[in-house]
């Protein structure tokens, strides 16, 4: 198994300009307008892509399909961890290979933190589980890494043995992020990670995510209906409406100079500070 001794890795220095994740002609429609129609996208290391749109626009369905959790009806999701690795088409490789890849290279942050945490397992165990899943078998080492990550997400070291159900919503969300990042994924999928949080807690979380993106060269796909979150975090943005991508591009260009009527409506509906 890989040596997982380091909690915070040195910056990835792979200069390869190949996309980490590619979606080609990807679609999944439960019914007309439910799900999403063919989507193409490229995601590069260190890049944050926000998918925005109102409820029911297909954002979450797209995120699930991109992250290997929902088979598309058409198209492919192709993942290439680095230039030495062969590209893998997520839904064409075996389920065992896909789950292995998702464990090692992906992180998934759910909107409701308890969906991504084990309620009856201590905070340290929740973080450590990911390490044990990829083969870590040294208790002291697992614990040390769990502690490092708790500190990295600003949870007190004295809470390591407490159950997540005793944590506040913001702490639970940070714990979920720590659990996802402990194995050094290359790509993290987040579904409304700041959704249920107080505004003050949101800011801390945004700051945390942004720092992690810079320091670990993470690629992130973040689903949000909050345009302010998208503006602060995302390099690029994808606007969805009724299962269709209506506009995509540089975040500030899409938000400051929206071309599509729906994007204009979305942008103009945001309350100004």
């Amino acid at each position, binding site marked *: 198994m890989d040596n997982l001794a380091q909690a915070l890795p040195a910056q990835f220095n792979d200069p390869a300009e190949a996309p980490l994740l590619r979606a080609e002609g990807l679609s999944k429609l439960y019914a007309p307008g439910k799900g999403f129609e063919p989507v193409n996208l490229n995601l590069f290391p260190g890049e944050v892509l926000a998918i925005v749109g109102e409820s029911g626009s297909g954002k979450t369905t797209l995120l699930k399909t991109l992250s290997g959790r929902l088979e598309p009806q058409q198209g492919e999701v192709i993942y290439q961890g680095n230039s030495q690795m062969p590209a893998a088409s997520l839904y064409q490789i075996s*389920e065992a290979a896909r*789950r292995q890849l998702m464990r090692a290279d992906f992180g998934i942050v759910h909107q409701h933190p308890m969906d991504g945490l084990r309620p009856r397992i201590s905070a340290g165990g929740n973080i450590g*589980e990911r390490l*044990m899943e990829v083969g870590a078998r040294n208790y002291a080492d697992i614990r040390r890494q769990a502690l490092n990550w708790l500190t990295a997400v600003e949870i007190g070291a004295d809470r390591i043995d407490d159950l997540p159900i005793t944590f506040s919503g913001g702490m639970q969300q940070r714990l979920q992020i720590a659990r996802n990042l402990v194995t050094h994924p290359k790509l993290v999928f987040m579904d409304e990670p700041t959704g249920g949080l107080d505004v003050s807690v949101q800011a801390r979380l945004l700051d945390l995510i942004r720092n992690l993106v810079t320091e670990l060269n993470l690629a992130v796909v973040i689903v949000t209906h909050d345009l302010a979150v998208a503006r602060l975090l995302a390099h690029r943005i994808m606007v969805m409406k009724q299962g269709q991508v209506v506009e995509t591009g540089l975040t500030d260009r899409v938000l400051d100079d929206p071309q599509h009527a729906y994007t204009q409506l979305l942008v103009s509906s945001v309350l100004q500070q």
Partner: protein
Amino acid sequence: MQSFNQIVSATEPEQDYNFGYLDEQTKRMIRRAILKGVALPGYQVAFGGREMPMPYGWGTGGIMLSASILGQDDVFKVIDQGADDTTNAVSIRQFFAKVCHLETTTETAKASVIQTRHRIPEQPLRNDQILVFQVPIPEPLRFIEPRETETKKMHSLGEYGSMQVKLYEDIVKYGYIATSYAYPVMVHGRYLMDPSPIPKFDNPKMHQSNALMLFGAGREKRIYCIPPYTDVASLDFEDHPFSIQQWQAPCSLCGSETSFLDEVLIDDQGQRMFVCSDTDYCQGQLAKNAAEEALHG
């Protein structure tokens, strides 16, 4: 040509029940499940469990297995908590004496089939013996994952890392791996298995065992097996290796220092003693001690 049932009925002195209580088709079905289980050591094989004339939790899984493998020539022993003389052990022994007309015994060495709850005999088993375990909850992953669909997937893909979490939590709470029974094992380096509620003291006895081991869960309708001479490894951490229980003093009755001891309260003042849980083994040791004393004394 005589049918199989005719042959059976010809050898059957009493016609109230079929030999071994279960009908022949059921026994065949269970034997097929056993064969599959032997071919896939540690894998839980689903089978069509039958209603037995006793409640779930009284060992119906083990009884169905025993009923399917016992023959007229077998010698049958039942252990409950290590003892041959508890109500449950006596009842099951009598049950098979009645429906199979076979010889029963309390001596481990004499038995060809041993049905057990909670223990593996102290005396090493031979390869002409079969040990049948009664299992309440066959799924070792249930603790971490409540969904059956998901545990099945975890088994099929060999995703067992999260099982370590159970041990991690033990160390967090107690400073050591406190799980002392139903201690999870990896069988043949492939399937994670719950060894039924035997003490972890008995786990090493499963490794490279001479005897075939069959596990039956009546309520959950699962059968799994460890064929003879199979690797069975208890999960642990590098810095918290697997270890078995130890006692300060030897058995108060036979003086054994190597057997699993039960704590027994002996009066209302809280006086207690530690004695072998395996009653047959303890009696064997006592007899041996007496013989040696006679020889030397």
